[in-house]
Each structure stands twice: as structure tokens, then as C-alpha cells.
């Protein structure tokens, strides 16, 4: 195979994605653009960006901080929550250290209670997330919560955002989302022209960046992807099993799932999780009378398992299957992530009945002691496809 053109043309190419983003955040902070920490896809970053604040995704994906977290938190809690809290305790997350405040949402019980502990360390604002998104009150309530967040940020950072500025932010996010979808489309090509690591690195960068800064980078990436297409380079082969990975957020030590898929000869064509396609999949409605309502409407469409019912996830899966043409679906469930774990049954039924496609649920945490078993399961899944 020909040499792959690196997609980033900067000094961080080939390095872990957080390095690039950290350097960017530091520059922003120096330029009087304070940092706001976020944990979850539901954090409406457009509000932050509208008032010149920089959102930073806080550390949550390393097994290294779990032991210290377990001195306070129960061991049988989701690794993502334990890892997040361990970083706070150890003071080892640079993004958290830089953040002037943290925005949190009531997505799950474990996080909700962990936020109470984190609030003792940093100003922390919790948004009450409606979990029945189809109810008429949901949009109204979430709009109100977004406005309340605006009030909190205005007070904490002594800044303001007009509706016009929020609208501008929305339009920019739409522009970014369109470019991101265009980039993910290179994974729909058979065989894919982009791999999981690149999609992960790009998503990690694109979300917290000012869209004005992100757009030229994304456009450069598309240009280089086009060059790959022209040169006929790609990942895997015509026969490599194409995998859609759905479920809990994936990052850091949890990336083992993508690595194992690749080692077993597969290619990840859709990372359908909060650190993947999910956030860029849909646009905001533009020029609505109330831009906060446009935000509420879009954010409530995120098909997270904390929502009930979560039919949107099944619809989204069908659309992705249609578009990315995977050969199998792997549902990645973090241990003790009850909502994704319970929902896995429904997802499995749907994938086998509606799409007649091999389905595999993998329940794991950040440790590497089950890599052998996961490898056997993935290999057996690929044997089914053969």
C-alpha cells in the first residue's frame, strides 16, 4: 500500500489528540477567551462560544486515575465517572485545571452524584436534562435550562451574549457539522479512505475549536482525503469486515475496542458514539425566533441511552447502516453504564431483525485484562461474516 498522507499538517501530527487541543486552549486562554469545562455532548457549546468562551472536553478516559477515585467512589461504578473524578482528585487533567467553571448535565445517576463532589473543587453548573425528549414540555424546559446556563456563564465570566451572537454561533456549528459529515463520508467509501484514529482525532479537535479556527483545518483535511482518493490509497482491503461501533463513549484506554477490531482485520466505518459521529450528525434550525429553542431542539435529538424512549437511536442506526454499509454492528457498553447496557438488548434485536446483520455486544471497562476474550469475540464475529 502507498504511504498515507497525514491528515493534519501541524507539529502534532501523529501525537495523541489532546496535545494539539491543549496547545490551542492555552493560546485561547492567553487571548482572553476563558475556558469552560464540559463532560457531555449535551453541553450547548454555542452559548459559550457566543460569549467568547472556549469549551474544553474534560478528561474521562484513563484507567490510571481510577484507583484514586475509588477511595471516594464505589468500585462498581462506570469507569468513565471514576476516571473523571480521579483526574479531578489528582489534579492531573490540564483542561480541568484551566477551566474557570464546569458545565454538567443530569444524564445519569452516577454522574449526577459525582458532580456534587466535583462542585467542591470548581464552580459547577448542573443543567436538568429532560429525559423524555418526546414530551412537549421537554423542549421548553431544556430551552429554559440553556438560558439559565447563559445566566450562570454571564455571571461567572462577566460576559454577555446577544441572541444575534447565539444565532451566529449556531450557523457556524452547522458549517462545522457539514464539513465533519463530509469527512466521515470518506469512511463510507469501500474500502475506507479514513480510519478510526483519524476520525477520533478530528472529532476531538473539531468540537471545542472555534469554528472559524476549525474550518480551515477541516477543509485542509478534506483536500488531503481527496488526494488519497485520487491516489487510490485506503485502509484495509475490499474484504476487510466493516464495523459500525455504537454505544457508550469511546476514548483513551477504551480505544482498545477500535484497536482490537483493526488487529483482527476489520475496519471501523462508523464510530457512533458521543466521541464520534453523534454530535455532527444533524444541524440546528437556523433563524428561529428564539435561538435558544433551536439549540434545545437539536440537543434533544441526540440519541443517548439516558433518554426514554430512545427510538431516535434505532432510526439513526438504520440511516448509518444505509450510508456506511457495515458488515456487522458492535455495541460497546462500559461496565455499569446501565442505560446503554439495558438498551443493548433492544439494539441487538433491531439489528438482527431489521437488518439481518451480525451483532455483538461487548461489555468492558478501561483495563486491558479482557483483551484476549474481546479478541476471540471479535474474531468469531468476523468468522460469521466470512
Amino acid at each position, binding site marked *: 500500500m502507498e504511504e498515507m498522507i497525514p491528515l493534519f499538517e501541524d507539529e502534532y501530527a501523529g501525537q495523541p489528540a489532546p496535545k494539539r487541543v491543549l496547545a490551542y486552549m492555552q493560546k485561547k486562554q492567553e487571548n482572553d477567551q476563558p475556558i469552560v469545562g464540559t463532560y457531555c455532548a449535551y453541553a450547548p457549546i454555542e452559548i459559550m462560544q457566543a460569549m467568547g468562551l472556549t469549551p474544553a472536553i474534560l478528561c474521562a478516559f484513563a484507567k490510571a486515575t481510577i484507583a484514586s477515585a475509588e477511595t471516594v467512589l464505589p468500585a462498581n461504578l462506570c469507569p468513565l465517572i471514576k476516571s473523571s473524578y480521579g483526574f479531578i482528585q489528582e489534579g492531573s487533567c490540564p483542561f480541568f485545571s484551566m477551566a474557570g467553571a464546569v458545565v454538567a448535565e443530569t444524564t445519569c445517576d452516577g454522574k449526577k452524584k459525582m458532580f456534587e463532589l466535583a462542585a467542591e473543587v470548581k464552580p459547577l453548573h448542573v443543567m436538568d436534562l429532560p429525559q423524555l425528549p418526546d414530551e412537549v414540555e421537554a423542549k421548553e424546559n431544556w430551552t429554559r435550562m440553556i438560558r439559565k446556563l447563559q445566566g450562570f456563564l454571564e455571571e461567572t465570566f462577566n460576559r454577555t451574549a446577544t441572541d444575534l451572537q447565539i444565532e451566529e454561533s449556531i450557523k457556524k456549528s452547522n458549517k462545522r457539522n457539514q464539513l465533519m459529515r463530509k469527512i466521515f463520508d470518506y469512511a463510507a467509501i469501500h474500502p475506507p479512505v479514513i480510519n478510526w484514529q483519524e476520525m477520533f482525532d478530528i472529532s476531538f479537535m473539531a468540537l471545542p475549536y472555534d469554528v472559524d479556527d476549525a474550518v480551515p483545518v477541516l477543509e485542509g483535511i478534506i483536500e488531503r482525503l481527496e488526494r488519497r482518493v485520487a491516489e487510490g490509497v485506503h485502509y484495509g482491503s475490499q474484504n476487510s469486515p466493516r464495523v459500525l461501533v455504537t454505544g457508550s463513549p469511546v476514548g483513551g484506554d477504551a480505544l482498545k475496542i477500535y484497536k482490537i477490531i483493526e488487529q483482527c482485520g476489520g475496519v471501523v466505518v462508523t464510530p457512533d458514539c458521543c466521541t464520534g459521529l453523534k454530535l455532527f450528525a444533524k444541524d440546528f434550525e437556523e433563524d428561529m425566533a428564539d435561538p435558544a429553542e433551536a439549540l434545545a431542539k437539536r440537543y434533544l435529538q441526540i440519541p443517548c441511552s439516558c433518554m426514554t424512549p430512545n427510538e431516535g437511536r434505532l432510526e439513526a442506526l438504520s440511516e448509518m447502516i444505509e450510508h456506511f454499509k457495515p458488515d456487522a454492528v458492535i455495541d460497546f457498553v462500559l461496565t455499569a453504564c446501565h442505560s446503554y447496557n439495558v438498551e443493548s438488548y433492544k439494539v441487538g434485536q433491531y439489528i438482527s431483525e431489521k437488518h439481518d446483520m451480525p451483532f455483538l455486544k461487548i*461489555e468492558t471497562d478501561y483495563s486491558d485484562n*479482557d483483551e484476549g*476474550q474481546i479478541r*476471540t*469475540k471479535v*474474531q468469531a464475529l468476523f*468468522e460469521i461474516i466470512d
Partner: protein
Amino acid sequence: MGQHFAGIDIGSRTIELVIVDKAGTIIENFQRDTGYNPMSEVDSLLSQVSYDAIMATGYGRNLFELSIEARTVTEIKAHARGAMATFPGVRTVLDIGGQDSKVISLSETGRVSRFEMNDRCAAGTGKFLEIMAKSLGYRIEDFGNEALAAKKDITISSMCTVFAESEVTSLIGRGEDCREIALGLHDSVVRRVSGMIRRVSATDAGELVFTGGVARNPCIRMLLERTLDREIQVAEDPQLIGAYGAALLALESALQ
């Protein structure tokens, strides 16, 4: 094309080697403990036989692939193939080995359509039974028959090995009969695997074949049949099924 095809199943507890001829008939088979140096056991086993092609399976298959030029296949496909060759009507395979338990659902043509395998913990596997037998002072070979001699059921609620050991200790201390405790332990394994079977094979269509070392335990077999209200097929040497399946796959890939 050659005359002899080997399948080797490098499990966590034992290694099985099966040689088939080009008609797929078993002509030789061997078994030994995996021990602490599986590769030297494998080498000494292989030095006793000759074959034209070999396929490896089991948790040690990747180790094998590194040292000897051989193709590998997962335990799931190997057990499915071996069970299909032994019982052509099979639609569900239950394999309980030393560290892993698996339920495999097969299509009419014998292809794997779904499977489930335990996550990291060896609860409900051969290892669990082995440790429990020891804590009651039984040899593993006798454990099932002793349990079958029990007069009443005792419910053991712990599935975790160390928790179950504590539970056993307290039952012994209460003066409960060892055979009845043994029955309770067998029942706890059966409750766990029957849940897996119900999840993976929704229909009662076709035969249910029980493979792996634990299939030799008569009490597990009896309790499974009672719990599932379904007949279970067990091969004469159920622990050889994985290696047999691998040998057949070695033969078939040579035919291609």
C-alpha cells in the same frame, strides 16, 4: 492433497489434539494438561504425530500461530463445526470449558449465526466447579455423581467463586450435608448457563449439544435438562469437540 489433518485445541486447562483422515473420521486423539508452559506441551504432543495440515483453536491459538506456521480459528467456530459433525441436527451448542462458557446458535446449514461468551470472569465454568469440589473435599471426577446422590436442594446464591466459597464454608458450619451443598453448587452453574441459552437460542428448534469438559459432569447434564425441559446431546468425548472441529476445518481448507 494430504492424508491426515490435525486440529489442536489449546485450552486454559487442557490441550486436545485430534487427527482425522481425508474422510473426516477421527483416527487418533490425545489430551493433556496445559500446565504452565503450553508451548512445550504442544511441541511434545505434535512430535508424536504426523499430519499434512493443522488448524489451532482455543485461548492459546495465537501463541501457537506465532511459533508454528498454522491457521487458527476461534473456539466458537471450532465447537460449532465439531458439534455439527457429531450431531447433524444441532442448532445450539453449549460449551463449558475451563475458563469460558459459550452458547452458539447455528443455522440449518451449520453456520454460526449468533453466540454469547462470558466476560472475563470464569464464574459458572469448569474452574468454578473444580474449586468448589476441592472446598468440599471431592475429586472433580466424582463431584457430579456425589451431587446427584443428594436428597434435597440447597440454594447457593453466589456466582462469584470466592463468595460461593464463603457460602459453602458457612453451610458446612451449619452442618449441611456435603452432597446437598454440591447439588446447590451445580444448580447455580446451571441457572447461569440456562439464562445464556435462553437468550441466544430463542427457539427450541433442533438439537442442543453440550460440549467441553464440563459436559462430562452428569449432574450438570441432568439439571440442565430439567431446567430447560429439553433433551441434551453429549458426545462420547465432549472435550474433544473443539479439536475435532478444528481438524475438520483444516481438512476443508485444504480441499478449497
